[in-house]
């Protein structure tokens, strides 16, 4: 039976405050709370609340035949816990239906795997624990920040007990093979690989409201018809996109909610088709072949690689200096210090420093709170400077202990 696998990524960046060089050594809170809250509220009203309500309604309406998956980054979880518990409760209600899978990822929405295997592992374990305690679900499927993927990552993820991993269905790894099949990563025994069908996913995520697109307007019936053409018994069509597509990237006025409302019915109209979550799809389908991916791929840009975050000298410099602090951070044995270090690992900070498309001003620009990648780098490096200086200073507790120890020795 062909499966349709719908997964939404939920993430909000942790925006940093404007931090001048002259703040170094004086100001130690780095986050722009007001801005983060403002944007979270906006997205909650435009997307999270209405989309969550609609999905819940659809799940109830189709009595378990409509199923979806979410991955909530640890960063957005922090923000929701702090500012919008109502949205978080909405996700819990969805989880309670038994029709919604919650995936695991790195807690800090980070690129830790590329710099520190230990930090990567710790972040995944932490995220797993949070998902378990919030939704009562044991993570079975893993997806890396920005759908970054490689053989080495698959091996590490398999070792951590996951059954499925997600990646971009790019020709770079598929060649002429279909993305609509389950594969086995090279070097893995049990782990299954689900690949994003980027054409069908982006038809909704990017092209839905594009009036210059030949297929505009996209109706659920038309879209379901395209899916139904993929008739192979073992097919899995993976539609992965940002949750914010619903109502935020594509506004309500575009008809995106009506599209979503009609979609399950149109797809299920064909008796062979069903919805499955990633873990269910991985279990239901045998691996059709092996996928070899020695280098890193991702779902970003035309290049589908990691250059959006680590492509230029500024990004590499920032990442190198950040992970260079790892030993010092751990030595402090201070939850707050680790939390700050993790916050600074969020991939968005590096994305803002990307110069690749800056001249043309496109999607990178839209999501970038900085005037230029240079400003992003300067701001980040100032904060990193303050953070690294604060690591060198001995904490109050340590100082007290040192004084006592000296007193004892006297």
């Amino acid at each position, binding site marked *: 039976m062909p499966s349709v696998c719908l997964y939404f990524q939920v993430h909000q960046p942790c925006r940093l405050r404007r931090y001048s060089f*002259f703040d170094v050594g004086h100001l130690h809170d780095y986050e722009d709370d007001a801005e983060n809250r403002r944007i979270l509220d906006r997205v909650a009203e435009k997307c999270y609340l209405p989309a969550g309500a609609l999905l819940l309604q659809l799940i109830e309406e189709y009595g378990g035949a409509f199923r979806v998956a979410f991955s909530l980054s640890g960063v957005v979880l922090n923000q929701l816990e702090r500012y919008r518990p109502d949205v978080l409760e909405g996700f819990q209600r969805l989880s309670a239906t038994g029709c919604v899978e919650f995936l695991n990822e790195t807690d800090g929405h980070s690129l830790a795997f590329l710099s520190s295997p230990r930090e990567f592992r710790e972040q995944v374990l932490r995220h797993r624990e949070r998902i378990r305690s919030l939704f009562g679900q044991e993570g079975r499927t893993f997806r890396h920040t920005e759908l970054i993927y490689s053989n080495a990552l698959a091996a590490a993820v398999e070792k951590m007990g996951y059954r499925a991993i997600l990646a971009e269905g790019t020709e770079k790894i598929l060649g002429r093979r279909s993305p609509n099949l389950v594969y086995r990563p090279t070097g893995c025994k049990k782990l299954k690989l689900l690949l994003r069908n980027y054409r069908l996913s982006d038809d909704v995520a990017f092209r839905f409201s594009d009036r210059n697109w030949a297929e505009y307007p996209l109706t659920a019936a038309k879209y379901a018809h395209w899916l139904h053409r993929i008739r192979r018994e073992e097919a899995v069509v993976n539609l992965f996109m940002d949750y914010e597509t619903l109502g935020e990237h594509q506004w309500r006025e575009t008809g995106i909610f009506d599209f979503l409302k009609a979609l399950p019915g149109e797809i299920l109209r064909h008796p062979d088709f069903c919805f499955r979550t990633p873990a269910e799809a991985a279990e239901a389908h045998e691996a059709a072949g092996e996928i070899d991916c020695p280098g890193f791929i991702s779902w970003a840009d035309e290049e589908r690689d990691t250059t959006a975050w680590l492509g230029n*000298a500024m990004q590499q410099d920032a990442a190198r200096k950040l992970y260079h602090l790892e030993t010092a951070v751990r030595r402090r044995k201070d939850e707050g210090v680790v939390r700050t270090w993790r916050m600074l690992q969020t991939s968005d900070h590096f994305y803002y420093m990307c*110069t690749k498309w*800056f*001249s043309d*001003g496109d999607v990178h620009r839209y999501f970038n709170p900085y005037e230029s990648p*240079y400003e992003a*780098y*300067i701001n980040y490096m*100032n904060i990193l400077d303050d953070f690294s200086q604060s690591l060198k200073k001995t904490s109050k507790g340590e100082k007290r202990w040192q004084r006592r120890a000296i007193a004892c020795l006297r």
Partner: protein
Amino acid sequence: MRILMFGWEFPPRMSGGLGTACYGMTAALAGLGHRITFVLPQDGEAGAAPFLDLVSASGVPVSDNDRDDGMEALLRRLTLRPLPSLLHPYLDPGHYHALYLSERRRFSETARVYGPDLIAEVIRYGQAGGVLARTLSFDVIHAHDWMTVPAALLARRISGRPLVLHIHSLEYDRSGEKVNEEIRAIEREGMEKADRIIAVSHRTKRMIAERYAIPPEKISVVYNAVTRTEAQRAYRTERPGERKMVLFLGRITFQKGPDYFVEAAAQVLHVLPDVTFVMAGAGDMMGRMIERVGELGIGDRFHFTGFLQGEEIERIFSLSDLYVMPSVSEPFGISPLEAMMYDVPVILSRQSGVSEILKHALKVNFWDVREMASKIIAVLKHPVLAGAMAEKAREELRKIRWEKAAERIAAIYREAVSGAPEPERGQI
């Protein structure tokens, strides 16, 4: 098309952005096949300037073996018409008076023809320039800034040809709110009577529309560009020593914001004591700046070079690690583009027209000294940042070319010619 241009300066004798821009666009227009008669003021002293060797007594260029081919082709389509005058682009009434007096002392014979004050001289030059229209044939008049307005208007009246007035700077840019009303009135009349106006940025276009009540439809924005010359290569790799150098280059006047640069320097030196600041240029605020540097106690790290030209400018750019343009009001600002040609990263004021087109530069509000200092520190501290900016700026610079600007200007000529006014003969 045949163009009567009332321009400023010609290499190698250039004193600032206006001359550089006039020359750049003239060369590009000639490159597109247009024929230009370039009228420019010339004082007694500069009569001996080298460029005049390029021009025969009748104003027709003579050939010269030393000249490269580009120059040759340019000169074939270009006729220089120097007119005796004390005008140069950056005069104000006070300076003119001093100049006039010294000129009269030195050349008591010739100096008698010049106007006794700036406005009088502008009018006198206008009459001398305007009547050239009787003897020349051309399709369009192109004039640059207020000092050429009387000449351009007279030429327009005599010939009936349309006038395109190019605004590189307004009285409000030069003087802030303390404008000279006479100059403002000349600017206004010029812009009202011109058939088309070219502004060097949207910033300038807005000012023209708002402060002079000119309909925006009449104003087109054409950004300036830079001319690449081979000479710059000679200094490319010269960035010696450990100590980093931060450069200000421009007239040391209110408009250029030198005071903000000095204050920012003091803040930077507080944190990074091993940096040299250089203020290159001259102007009426220089004395005050030297005093302020003394007050701040940073004299050992802050240097004044005085007025630089030609190779000295190339040299100072190639020695710099960072160029700062803190202008209070800069209609365009060509010098950041020049700095970028030497792979020097640039910080510029948001109150400049050039910031509308430059992406690979850092931008600050001119009054935000702390932010300026913070950004100077960032560029000096992170070689990676300076490198990334310089690399991307090089790509950006390739797109900013006079050829493109000249094509836009030629299109504006065509518009002006198709809607040309009727000649008003016999009432000069």
